[in-house]
């Protein structure tokens, strides 16, 4: 019985409703880094590189500083801190790679 309960308690599509709350909370900080970099450097490719990599790191640090305890909100839904960070990082990295490739093809 325990095995079944553990198996069924892994990430389900419904959990993504909760996950995207975290995703948007973190990514808004990342978007600010990305926009500020673009406004200062006038470099769109660099801005999306920031969005995919360094902005994520900064966003997680800001989230940790101001909202660290909110990780428990997600943990109660079975979403560990590791899952939240890896999945957010992956989505932003893939998004930025797609956009960079599109921009590179256009230019």
């Amino acid at each position, binding site marked *: *019985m*325990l095995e079944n*309960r*553990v198996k069924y*308690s892994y990430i389900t599509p*419904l959990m993504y*409703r*909760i996950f995207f*709350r975290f995703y948007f*909370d973190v990514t808004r900080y990342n978007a600010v880094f990305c926009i500020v970099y673009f406004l200062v450097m006038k470099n769109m490719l660099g801005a999306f590189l920031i969005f995919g990599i360094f902005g994520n790191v900064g966003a997680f640090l800001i989230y940790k500083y101001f*909202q660290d*305890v*909110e*990780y*428990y*909100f997600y*943990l*109660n*839904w*079975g979403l*560990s801190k590791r899952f939240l960070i890896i999945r957010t990082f992956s989505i932003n990295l893939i998004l930025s790679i797609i956009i960079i490739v599109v921009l590179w093809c256009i230019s």
Partner: protein
Amino acid sequence: MVHKLIIDSLSHSFGKKAVLSNVHLEIATGNITGILGRNGSGKTTLFKTVIGTLKPSSLHAYLDGEIIQNNTDLYRFIGFHPQEIILPQGVLVSKLITMYILNGDDQNKIFYAPGVYDMQSKRVYQLSHGQQRYLQFLLILNLKHSFIFLDEPFSMVEPIYRSFIKDKLVEYKNDKGIIITDHYYLDILDVSDKIYLIKNGEISPINKPEDLISNGYLADKSILF
């Protein structure tokens, strides 16, 4: 069906200071277990080591008689209400309830709980600290988990909400195994079926309120009533 969670040989230390030493605790659905202890005695550490956000020196956990091989999976069976507010601040309360609780009947239990009607159209940050704690308590109590750990649910909550919380605990205890800790010891004594005291890293049962005095948790008998 009654579910039983057994925490055995739980030890944890911060550096050389042993905070929890060989703790054994059994929690069953249908029971409220109160844990008392002075500041720094290890109440919160006990919760955090069990749900896995702190790594224990040793821990064996059994659920319904079966050993849980990977202790880091324990959080999947336990709803945890920490001392702090964990709710995302910018979300509308009504949206938060429907997002966090899937079942319509369970959502209604929160929407129709005393005091919630006035909160529904507000965002979390617009609520008072006490209202946020009360809402957080209701959300976590209505999760599907069989076991709920409540860390100081009565703290910073006004008396009327404290009585709502006590009523809800009694209402939900048939389906859930609840561990509760707080410095509002009279409320804990009121709702709990079993009481334990953590002292010097060890946990011991309290059979009568006077034991709290003999164990140095309370100064004198007059504050027991």
